[in-house]
C-alpha cells in the first residue's frame, strides 16, 4: 500500500518521496570540484520558530548531485561563511534546509529572503539508507531540531509504506511551542499507518500530549525489538540516552543508527575539524551505527 503524503496546509514545504536506492552519480560536467559551491536561489522561506527558518533552494545553473536522506550540504552565505546543514527534504529538485540561528553564518542564512542566492556544496556524508531496513519495524526518535534530518525518512517510508513493518515516530522537545513542523506532525499523527508520540519537558495543562523525557516513550513504543531498526537524531546527550533505552528494549545494537553532527568544515574528509576518534564525520558520518558511535559519544567537541 502506498499512501499519498498529506500536503502541508501552510508554508511552502510540500512533501514527497525521496528517491530510494543508490544515489545516482551526478552529471558533473563543469569539472567543479567538491570545494566549489554551486549557485542556488531561495524559492521559499518559512519561519518555523522564532530562531529557525526552512529554506527551499533551487539551482541557478548546474545542480549538485541528488542528495539522499541523512546527508548534509555546506551552505554558503556569501561574504559571511559556510555552515553544514542537514537535508530536511528534497522534492522536485528543491532542496529543503532547516536552519537555526546560532551564529554569524546561520544568522545570515536565516535572514535570506526569496530570490537571494546561496552557495551549496554537497551532498556529503553517509545517509540513513532506510531501504536497508526493508521488512522491519522502523523506530524514529528525534530530539529538538533532530526532526529536520528525520523528516526525509518519514517521507520516504510513507512513499514505500508496504515495504516496512510498523512505523513509530517519537519526538522530544523542550516545550510545545518549540516543536518544529507542527502542522506536518499533526498530519502524520492523524494517519492510521504510523504512530507519532510527542513528549515535552514541561507544558501548561492545555497541552494534551506527554510530558517527560523521550526515553519514556521508547519504553512503550509498539515495535518488535527482534525485528526493528532505530534511527535517532538530536542533541548528543539525548541520543545517548534514547539509544540506550532502545537497546534496553532488546534491539540489536547494529540496528541502531545515530546522526552525529560535529563541526564539519571542509566536508570532504580533508581538514580534520570534524574528526571524532578514527572517524571523519563529514564522510564517515553523520549517520553511524551504535557500535561505532557509542565510544565516540564520550568525546568532547573541540
Amino acid at each position: 500500500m502506498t499512501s499519498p503524503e498529506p500536503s502541508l496546509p501552510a508554508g511552502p514545504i510540500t512533501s514527497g518521496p525521496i528517491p530510494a536506492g543508490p544515489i545516482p552519480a551526478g552529471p558533473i560536467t563543469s569539472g567543479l570540484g567538491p570545494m566549489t559551491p554551486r549557485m542556488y536561489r531561495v524559492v521559499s522561506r518559512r519561519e518555523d520558530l522564532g530562531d529557525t527558518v526552512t529554506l527551499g533552494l533551487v539551482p541557478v545553473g548546474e545542480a549538485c548531485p541528488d542528495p539522499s536522506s541523512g546527508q548534509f550540504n555546506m551552505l554558503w552565505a556569501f561574504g559571511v561563511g559556510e555552515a553544514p546543514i542537514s537535508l530536511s527534504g528534497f522534492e522536485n529538485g528543491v532542496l529543503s534546509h532547516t536552519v537555526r540561528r546560532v551564529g554569524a553564518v546561520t544568522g545570515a542564512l536565516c535572514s535570506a529572503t526569496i530570490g537571494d542566492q546561496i552557495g551549496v556544496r554537497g551532498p556529503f556524508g553517509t545517509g540513513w539508507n532506510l531501504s536497508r531496513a526493508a521488512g522491519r519495524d522502523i523506530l524514529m526518535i528525534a530530539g529538538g531540531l533532530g526532526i529536520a534530518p528525520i523528516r526525509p525518512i518519514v517521507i520516504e517510508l510513507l512513499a514505500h509504506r508496504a515495504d516496512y513493518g510498523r512505523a513509530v515516530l517519537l519526538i522530544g522537545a523542550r516545550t510545545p511551542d518549540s516543536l518544529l513542523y507542527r502542522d506536518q506532525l499533526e498530519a502524520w499523527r492523524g494517519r492510521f499507518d504510523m504512530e507519532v508520540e510527542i513528549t515535552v519537558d514541561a507544558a501548561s495543562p492545555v497541552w494534551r500530549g506527554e510530558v517527560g523525557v523521550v526515553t519514556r516513550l521508547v519504553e512503550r513504543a509498539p515495535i518488535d525489538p527482534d525485528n526493528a531498526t532505530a534511527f535517532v537524531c538530536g542533541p548528543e546527550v539525548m541520543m545517548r540516552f534514547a539509544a540506550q533505552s532502545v537497546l534496553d528494549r532488546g534491539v540489536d545494537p547494529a540496528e541502531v543508527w545515530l546522526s552525529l553532527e560535529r563541526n564539519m568544515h571542509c566536508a570532504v574528509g580533508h581538514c580534520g575539524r570534524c574528526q571524532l576518534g578514527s572517524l571523519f564525520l563529514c564522510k564517515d558520518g553523520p549517520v553511524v551505527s551504535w557500535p561505532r558511535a557509542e565510544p565516540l559519544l564520550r568525546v568532547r567537541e573541540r
Partner: protein
Amino acid sequence: MRSIPELLGEHPFFADLPDETLELIAACGRNVHFDQDARLITANAPADVFYVLRRGKVAVEVDTPQRGPLVIETIGPGDLLGVSWLLPPYRWTFGARAAEATGAIAVDAACLRAKCDDDPALGYEMFKRFAGLVRDRLQATRLQLVDVYGNDEP
C-alpha cells in the same frame, strides 16, 4: 471482573510478587476512577495513599504564581503515582490531575506501612521497588535538567 490481587499482579510494578504478597497489598487497595480533570492528589495535603495506574493519563503538576499550573510529567498505565507516603512527613510535594479519564487501584498508605512494619521482608521488597521507581524518576529529572534541546544546533 478481576480481583484486586489479579489486577496488581498484572501491573509491571508488582511483577513477579508471590500471590500471598499480592493478597497482602491488595487488602489495602480499592478500585477508583477519576473523570478527566479530576484531582488525584494536592500539594501539601497528607500523603495517605498511592495510585497504581491501570488506564488513562495523569499529569503531575506544580503551581506557579505567574504561569499557573505547569505540567512536569505525565504518567499512564504501568506507572505508579506517589512516593511521599513512604517517608515522614507523609505530605505530597506536587499535585496530580487526571489528564484523561483514569482508572487506578488506590492503596491505603497507613495500611501498607503497618504491614511493612510487621513484616520486614515485605517492607524490604516494597522499598526496593520504590527505590527503583525513584531512581528512574531521578534519572529522567536529571535529563530534563540538562535541557538537552535548549541549545542544539542544526
